[in-house]
């Protein structure tokens, strides 16, 4: 019984000793704890200010982006409409080309006129569907050269400046394809 009492007292003393040590440690490091609290609060305020600034900046950038995109899309739409009009004009030009051949070479079989027109249309579509700008330029030059050759052949024939009964230069260009 006295041993049990002694043991209980020892436990109690140990508990109080631990509490004293804890209190002494807290007292010696009081300044550091205060400094830590202050720097924590300061860092938090700093972070809040930075977040607010960044958020406002982003909102401004988004407004700017919205306007830029709207302008870009409007320009793109206009360009597409213009492209469609250009394409329509190209098709009309090719129809006129065919009519010009048929009017110039009256004896020419319609098959030849159709073939010339078909080739011109092929060049037009190849130009329109070209992926790179270089290829597009190359196809455009081909088309222009072809149409010039056709008109030139028709002009020479009408003026009687050539003995050829068919648009030979044009047909050669088609064969070279």
């Amino acid at each position, binding site marked *: 019984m006295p041993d049990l009492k002694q043991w209980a007292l020892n436990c109690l003393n140990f508990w109080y000793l631990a509490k004293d040590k804890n209190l002494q440690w807290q007292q010696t490091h009081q300044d550091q704890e205060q400094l830590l609290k202050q720097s924590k609060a300061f860092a938090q305020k700093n972070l809040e200010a930075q977040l607010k600034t960044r958020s406002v900046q*982003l909102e401004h950038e*988004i407004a700017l*982006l*919205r306007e830029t995109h709207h302008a870009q899309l409007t320009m793109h739409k206009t360009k597409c409409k213009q492209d469609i009009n250009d394409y329509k004009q190209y*098709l009309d030009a090719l129809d006129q080309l065919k009519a010009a051949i048929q009017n110039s070479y009256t004896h020419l079989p319609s*098959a*030849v006129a*159709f*073939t010339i027109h078909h080739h011109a249309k092929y060049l037009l*579509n190849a130009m329109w569907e070209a992926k790179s700008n270089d290829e597009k330029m190359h196809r455009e030059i081909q088309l222009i050269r072809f149409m010039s050759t056709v008109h030139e052949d028709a002009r020479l024939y009408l003026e009687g400046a050539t003995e050829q009964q068919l648009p030979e230069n044009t047909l050669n260009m088609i064969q070279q394809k």
Partner: protein
Amino acid sequence: MLVRIPLWLLGSAFLLFIVLTILFNLHLLFLSELLLRVTTKIWFSGGVLLSLNGLAVIAHRIIRQLMMFFSVQSRFQRRLLFNLAKQAQFDLLHAGKAHYINYFCDLKRRHLLKVNDRKHILLLIKSIKQNLNNKRHKLPQAAFKQYRQQLKLYTRQQNLDNLLELQELLVTLL
């Protein structure tokens, strides 16, 4: 501090249960019955206090989380993340709209091409029919029928290339 009280109550109730068992074994029924009533009440109170303590802790945690959610820092962080997501969304939307415009532009162009092709196919078919009818007597019956069938097939298919080949064939034949 608040947790200690119910724990003490439960601990003391447990000890009293032991004492109760000893008294019961010593056949002191009146005392054991009295002690049983007291012990059960202490046990019940300790349990209730412990449950209330638990509920208080949960409530405290919930309130603290709510306060953190509505704190200035969290609100600004959420606003910033929302704006970042909105910016990314704008870029995607722009790309989508541009793709949409390109698609319909290409569709219009193809429609124009189709209309133009149809116009020329009709002219070509008319020309081939005229050619075939003109050369009907010069062509063998079987060949004439074959060319007419081909013309019908290519007309149905609206195949410009094959029609051109047929036209060229008829021109070169005779």
